[in-house]
């Protein structure tokens, strides 16, 4: 009797620990989810996206976008952004003709080079915009990418 009770206590102890660990990670996950800028990802026009991000950007020749001229597969379009603007704090990648313009945003802390690359989906041929935040000013550069096979829907 006492033996089985001891086993039972051991078991509950282990489960208790597991539950605590599970709870902790969920709480962290929720905190990170809340940090996600939902409004910016739901805008449906370039002007709205700029407004949510914080300002209308000025054209700049100091931002370069690395992307193919023609993307055969819109589901996987490699896009890289390099900014030579001093004090670049954030880089955003926008696709004008996607259902939602904002594809990705990167926060660049000090010490990290404003040079990021990822792969995005594009529904159709469109301009790709790279918006850079430096201080409280915004800059933008764009490049047209022709898509022969769309990557949204199917």
């Amino acid at each position, binding site marked *: 009797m006492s033996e089985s009770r001891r086993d039972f206590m051991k078991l509950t102890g282990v489960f208790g620990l597991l539950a605590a660990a599970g709870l902790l*990670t*969920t709480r*962290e*996950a*929720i905190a*990170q*989810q809340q*940090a*996600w*800028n939902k409004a*910016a*990802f739901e805008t449906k026009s370039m002007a709205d996206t700029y407004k949510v991000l914080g300002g209308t950007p000025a054209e700049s020749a100091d931002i370069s976008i690395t992307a193919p001229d023609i993307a055969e597969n819109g*589901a*996987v*379009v*490699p896009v*890289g952004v390099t900014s030579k603007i001093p004090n670049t704090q954030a880089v955003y990648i926008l*696709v004008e003709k*996607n*259902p*939602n313009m*904002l*594809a*990705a*945003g*990167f*926060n*660049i*802390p000090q*010490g*990290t*080079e404003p*040079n*990021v*690359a*990822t*792969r*995005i*989906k*594009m529904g159709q041929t469109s301009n790709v915009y790279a918006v850079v935040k430096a201080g409280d000013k915004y800059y933008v550069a764009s490049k047209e990418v022709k898509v022969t096979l769309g*990557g*949204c*829907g*199917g």
Partner: protein
Amino acid sequence: MPDPMRIRATAQGDVVDVRVLMSHEMEGGQRRDSAGNLVPAHFIQTVTVTHGGKTVLSADWGPAVSKNPYLQFKFTGGKKGDELVVTWVDNKGETRTDKAVIS
């Protein structure tokens, strides 16, 4: 548990080039299945990379990032043997953390 990430970090001088390949569906929420029902969105929302406790990159992603996302960036101040920690969280609250040593 989602599949592990593939992380490669190489140091040249004190500049570290980081490449991460994540394994994730990145379902955009626009697609319909064969029965005509919308496939619910399921995508990574935030990615955080830390080096020695300091965040070197944090990214916010929308559903327009490709399936099995790729991320590349560079930061200064790292050296060989240091540890990098990459964490992502998706819109369903799933999360994964992987570590890599800079080579």
